[in-house]
């Protein structure tokens, strides 16, 4: 018994705080599992089916420790989650990217707002509310684990993947809001996975496409990302997600003899996981990889080796697969060939079970509350959540500049508006909403006449329009950009339409021009010539309404830039 105490003693402390009874359950469960069942727990695959027969076979074959689905209609996803929990012998961790609200799992959930929008309110309570909404709505459909908050620090405005997903570029604000989000989330018993250690936002490249680099010195890292992670850990972060991001100067500090070629992304770097995250920062919760089909992982090592090596290096759980059957066999083979020890597997599974217990999944499975009943769905887009989202929009929309003193605008002065929409494409893995129709309708409702630029075909008439003709036709040109940060793209810059940049603002000295971004806050780098520039960070209905209220003067701008919207350039301020 004394031996047992010492082996599991760490589970009684932060962040799991398990009781002796919990620990006993873990011990019994662990001992009753075969090696294959233990290996199953290490995996968190992507869910791709809602068919009962297929899911039964899937759970039977792999017995995964967790699963994540892409967003779907709340009722449907809830039913799938319920089925999965009933099929799984050990309760499943069910995760979702609840970064911006309940819409991270339920298409009919609240799109509260991107983290950067919340940061623009500079109101910690708004971050807590984002967490509350994400937790309540996620929990309503059966999620118990959020792959959020993002605590990357947006130090590099060219980074195509952090951007609006972050709480901005100020490390203190990132830490403060990250903690507030986590506090709100935990009210519903949903565990947070803080991401993406060792920190994204320094490089201008995306770890979905290559193994990116956080080039900070150890001292700089300690003061920024290190400080943020330390605070998150102290605030009981139950899990941390690891990016496929290298931290070369720290790796070298920890392993002075390491060769450049040997420096691995954190998912495969034991010195970053064990020495830095576990020992130096004192993290005792669960470590999960970021998605392993990402190139940052796949290009770092042969998959046959990388799969077991991720766990051997210190990750406790392995996210997604190229082919789960193959990855599973790679994991088994790694144990056989000695890349991964059974002791390390036991340690990882212990943490997985501990996370499950610490959020009460074991008891919920017994009471039948592990996925709530259909009545719980009423919380999706509840009035309270919509009200909060509306408040968040009101406090966040940021007037970056209006050096031509254009605002406010009214139909009396600027009746005829030329509306240019940039981006606003749906598809891919983008989770935001489309804004073309909502801006068009809202402006018309205010009494403006709106002529929408047709992006679908080359407009020669427009291309050759004289200054005189343009001024005859319009009183104001409004750009609305919805160029979303999304994985797997190298940039989020404006690409003007060809030929001859037909939709570019050549006319800023001829006609008043205004630019509103409902996504990327850094477009001034490409439109420094536009004198009135607004950042709104998210593409939801609440933001659109709030923007209209602000530009027409019904409400004042209250947001403050959580990043350098001028992109460090002098001309963008003019």
């Amino acid at each position, binding site marked *: 018994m004394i031996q047992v105490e010492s082996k599991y003693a760490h589970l009684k402390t932060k962040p799991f705080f398990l009781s002796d009874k919990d620990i006993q359950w873990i011990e019994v469960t662990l001992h009753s599992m*075969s*090696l*294959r069942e*233990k290996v199953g727990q290490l995996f968190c695959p992507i869910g791709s089916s809602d068919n009962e027969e297929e899911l039964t076979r899937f759970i039977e074959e792999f017995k995964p420790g967790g699963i994540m689905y892409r967003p779907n209609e709340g009722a449907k996803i809830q039913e799938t989650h319920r089925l999965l929990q009933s099929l799984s012998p050990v309760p499943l961790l069910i995760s979702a990217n609840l970064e911006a609200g309940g819409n991270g799992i339920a298409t009919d959930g609240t799109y509260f707002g991107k983290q950067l929008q919340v940061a623009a309110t500079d109101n910690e309570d708004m971050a807590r509310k984002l967490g509350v909404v994400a937790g309540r709505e996620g929990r309503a459909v059966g999620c118990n684990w959020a792959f959020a908050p993002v605590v990357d620090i947006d130090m590099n405005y060219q980074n195509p993947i952090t951007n609006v997903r972050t709480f901005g570029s100020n490390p203190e604000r990132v830490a403060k809001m990250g903690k507030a989000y986590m506090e709100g989330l935990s009210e519903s018993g949903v565990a947070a996975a803080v991401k993406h250690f060792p920190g994204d936002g320094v490089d201008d490249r995306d770890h979905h496409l290559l193994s990116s680099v956080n080039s900070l010195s150890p001292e700089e890292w300690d003061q920024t990302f290190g400080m943020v992670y330390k605070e998150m850990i102290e605030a009981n972060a139950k899990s941390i997600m690891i990016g496929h991001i290298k931290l070369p100067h720290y790796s070298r500090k920890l392993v002075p003899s390491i060769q450049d070629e040997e420096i691995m992304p954190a998912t495969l770097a034991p010195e970053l996981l064990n020495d830095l995250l576990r020992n130096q920062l004192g993290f005792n919760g669960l470590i999960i990889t970021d998605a392993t089909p990402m190139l940052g992982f796949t290009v770092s090592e042969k998959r046959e080796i990388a799969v077991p090596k991720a766990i051997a290096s210190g990750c406790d759980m392995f996210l997604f697969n190229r082919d789960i059957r193959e990855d599973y066999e790679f994991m*088994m*083979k790694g*144990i*056989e*060939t*000695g*890349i991964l020890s*059974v002791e390390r597997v036991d340690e990882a599974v212990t943490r997985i079970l501990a996370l499950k217990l610490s959020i009460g999944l074991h008891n919920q499975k017994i009471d039948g509350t592990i996925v709530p009943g259909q009545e719980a769905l009423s919380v999706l887009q509840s009035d309270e959540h919509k009200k909060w989202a509306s408040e968040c929009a009101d406090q966040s929309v940021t007037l970056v500049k209006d050096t031509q003193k254009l605002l406010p605008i009214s139909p009396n002065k600027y009746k005829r508006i030329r509306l240019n929409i940039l981006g606003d494409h749906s598809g891919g893995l983008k989770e935001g909403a489309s804004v073309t129709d909502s801006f068009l309708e809202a402006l018309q409702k205010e009494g403006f006449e709106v002529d929408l630029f047709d992006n679908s075909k080359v407009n020669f008439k427009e291309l050759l329009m004289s200054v005189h003709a343009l001024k005859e036709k319009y009183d104001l040109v409004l750009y609305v950009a919805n160029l979303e940060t999304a994985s797997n793209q190298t940039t989020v810059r404006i690409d003007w339409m060809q030929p001859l940049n037909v939709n570019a603002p050549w006319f800023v000295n001829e006609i008043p021009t205004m630019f509103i971004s409902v996504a990327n806050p850094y477009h001034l780098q490409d439109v420094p010539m536009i004198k009135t520039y607004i950042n709104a960070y998210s593409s939801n209905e609440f933001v659109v309404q709030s923007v209209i209220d602000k530009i027409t003067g019904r409400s004042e701008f209250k947001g403050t830039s959580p990043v350098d919207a001028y992109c460090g350039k002098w001309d963008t301020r003019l």
Partner: protein
Amino acid sequence: MNKSAVIFDLDGVIVSTDEYHYQAWKHISEQEGIPFNREINEKLRGVSRMESLEIILSNSTKSYSESEKLLLAEKKNEIYRELLNHLSEKDILPGVRELILNLKGRGIKIAIGSSSKNTPFILEKIGMASSFDAIADGNGIKNSKPDPEVFLLAAQKLGVRPEECIVMEDAEAGIEAAIAGGMVAVGVGAASTYQNTHIGVEDLTKLNIEQLFEIKESSR
């Protein structure tokens, strides 16, 4: 005594390099004009390199000095090692991987106990250099099987007592070595029908591990 470790002979249990030995000896025999065939080859199973050479040379009309013999043995090993380069994980014998995973899953320690000095090279070629908790091979012993030295060394490296060990062997000399070391001897393949084995199996896929741990308890 509870069993806590399994020691594997390498050649013939984990992987078979019989064919490579045969090819190498055949090359030497042809070069020296000595009759050699698969039947003679069978006599070489589990026998050290120098002893094998003596068996082959007994069919020669010529007599060899000690230094000539050493040279021939060295030459044979060069050819054999060259042939070993063809080894890959595909040559791992049936049932090995499952058994190793099963033992690891039970917390049973595993080791190699082989007289072959080529052990590290072979394990590297088949991708199992790090699979075992300990390796005792021809580079660390004075006496070949049936002397128990290599198995006792394996047990010592694992930090377990000899009576806690089960040995997997395909040669009679190896079975004798295990018994001399006070260990349970499982005869695999050629040694499966040998009278002194505690249990015999055709190959490792036929081994019932539950049964293995039960039988040796009651049989001792």
